[in-house]
């Protein structure tokens, strides 16, 4: 039995169907990140777990107990809000201790618990201040302290870092991850930032339009996306999606894409069984920028490298990497190369394609074309 079980949960606001049957299960100690573009229903789902929104249909189980009709305060859940929601007229200590006070914890114990959490979050010197006197990062810590002090079964985070500036956001991200590792708590975290999702999660649930697109480990979601949406949403710069055609060559399927006046032929390694049925049909192939590189940086040992010469259109150095833009299948594609690779726009260069990382999509349904093992595109991919 899983720790948190979201079983076919629906949400309707009048006529609008916001959540269309969500199924998610996580184990104790998991860090589940709900990620998706705004309006995908991730915050609604979080509010339903918290008990702040009612459940139209389906079932929520926490540690084997159905919590559909349990009052928010009795669910043993704490939540960190996007706006922090600190009580303006109380001190930091009052804010952190309020939940304990409501649960009739004696003053002395309360004081000890507040001190312990304040020490953990390094806000001991702020305990007597009012929220108005704190910086954004400090308010963030107080909001986390208010959740931590109650030591609940489940923590909910609703886009907690979206109000912080870029640098602080990265710092706090690290701290949240450290906190999770140290305390081993179970967390459900909502964000629209796929980098936050990748770095924090032990499980990612990608949502769109009230439907779950994929549930899996960050690596599984990244390397083995269920559909075009997941492929395009996760990763920055995003996955190259190239129009191509599957043809049979020497009895095996290969993918052909138009590259200027020639045709690039890429051998197919993954999902070969399924792709046999797609001969002479158009598909979309997906390759991460790091799967297209210069021959010297290519991973010849593990990867299945296929080299080709293509024109360089644009060179974008980022310091750590060099992104080289070329065109393939009528679209611009990004290749990640070693910095300092001597390339200039207009030249032709050799690109190394790691075809073992290539994924193929059906342009009609936008679903993945996969071998039998997980052939059903709509299915949630389960990865240990």
């Amino acid at each position, binding site marked *: 039995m899983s720790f948190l079980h979201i079983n076919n949960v629906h949400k309707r606001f009048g006529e609008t169907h916001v959540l269309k049957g969500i199924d998610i299960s996580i184990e104790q100690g998991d860090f589940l990140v709900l990620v998706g573009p705004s309006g995908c229903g991730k915050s609604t789902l979080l509010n339903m777990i918290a008990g*702040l929104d009612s459940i139209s249909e389906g079932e929520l189980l926490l540690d084997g107990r159905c919590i559909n009709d349990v009052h*928010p305060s009795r669910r043993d859940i704490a939540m960190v809000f996007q706006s922090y929601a600190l009580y303006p007229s109380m001190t930091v200590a009052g804010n952190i201790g309020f*939940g304990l006070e409501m649960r009739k914890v004696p003053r002395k114990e309360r004081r000890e618990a507040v001190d312990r959490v304040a020490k953990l979050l390094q806000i001991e010197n702020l305990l007597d201040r009012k929220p108005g006197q*704190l910086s954004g990062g400090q*308010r963030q810590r107080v909001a986390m302290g208010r959740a931590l002090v109650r030591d609940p079964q489940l923590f909910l985070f609703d886009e907690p870092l979206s109000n912080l500036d870029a640098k602080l956001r990265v710092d706090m991200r690290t701290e949240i991850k450290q906190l999770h590792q140290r305390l081993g708590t179970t967390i459900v975290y909502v964000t629209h930032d796929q980098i936050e999702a990748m770095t924090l999660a032990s499980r990612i649930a990608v949502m769109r339009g009230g439907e779950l697109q994929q549930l899996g480990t960050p690596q599984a979601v990244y390397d083995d996306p269920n559909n075009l949406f997941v492929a395009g949403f996760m990763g920055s710069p995003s996955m190259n999606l190239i129009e191509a055609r599957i043809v049979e060559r020497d009895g095996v399927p290969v993918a052909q894409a138009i590259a200027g006046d020639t045709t690039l032929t890429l051998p197919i390694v993954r999902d070969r069984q399924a792709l046999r049925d797609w001969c002479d049909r158009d598909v979309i192939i997906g390759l991460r920028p790091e799967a297209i590189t210069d021959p010297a940086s290519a991973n010849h040992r593990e990867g299945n490298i296929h080299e080709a010469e293509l024109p360089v259109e644009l060179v974008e150095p980022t310091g750590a990497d060099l992104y080289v833009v070329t065109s393939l299948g009528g679209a611009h594609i990004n290749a990640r190369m070693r910095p300092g690779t001597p390339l200039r726009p207009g030249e032709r260069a050799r690109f190394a394609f790691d075809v073992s990382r290539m994924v193929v999509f059906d342009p009609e349904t936008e679903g993945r074309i996969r071998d039998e093992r997980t052939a059903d595109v709509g299915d949630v991919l389960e990865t240990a």
Partner: protein
Amino acid sequence: MSAASPTVRQGAATRAILYAILLVFAVIYLLPLYVMLTTSFKTLDEIHQGNMLALPGEWTFAPWREAWGSACIGLECEGVHGYFFNSIKIVIPAVLISGLLGAFNGYVLTKWKFRGHKIVFGLILFSCFIPFQIILLPMARMLGILHLANSTWGLVLVHIVYGIGFTTLFFRNFYASFPDELVRAAQLDGAGFFVIFFRILLPASIPIIVVTIIWQFTNVWNDFLFGVSFASGDSAPITVALNNLVNSSTGVKAYNVNMAAAMVAAVPTLIVYILAGKYFLRGLMSGSVKG
């Protein structure tokens, strides 16, 4: 620099004219108050000499003492002090209860919305537009049924009922911009309906509480129509007593006593403005949510 100076000079000139006009209006506005104050400190002889704008030649506090303790209102010659305390007895419960009810209404109408909450608010708001005169007869009948006619408690009830519309409007609009997330956070922390109101919302409502107190205090204290209609004799508020005092002077009109009594009637509202005014601008919401 030289190019800028004509506009600077022009700006200064406009400003000077503006201030001059404002000053003139301020003087016109303050003149009656000045006359009231100076007259109340003059002897009757000095008043009869004319020259209304002159300062008292001989300062005397006798008119104030008389107005407070021995001026004749009707047949009784005990001054206005009894009526002053009547007004206090009316205004304090009326302001507190109507304010508290308005705050509760605002809280429920914004944070515990129910089906039809907009209609309920609309109806409450509608009461703000009902003129005093229209409800005089039905209200008199109602007070009779409740055995509250001719009593200060009757007036308290009238002012509470009449004030709820305004206090609800103030608090509802204030709480509409109060972040819902705070209420949700408090719910998760285990706080109930009343705890959320008294511990979270009310302490953050100082600015609107001050507005409500000033508004309600001024209205209730300065009310004459309800006072004269529903409370006569000993239970009348000071506004009614002042009217009776001015009307019941026999023989020579004691202008100085009248002015002193009028000042007594006006001072509490002035004090409320002076004490509470500075809280108007104080925003206590900073820091609860982002930015």
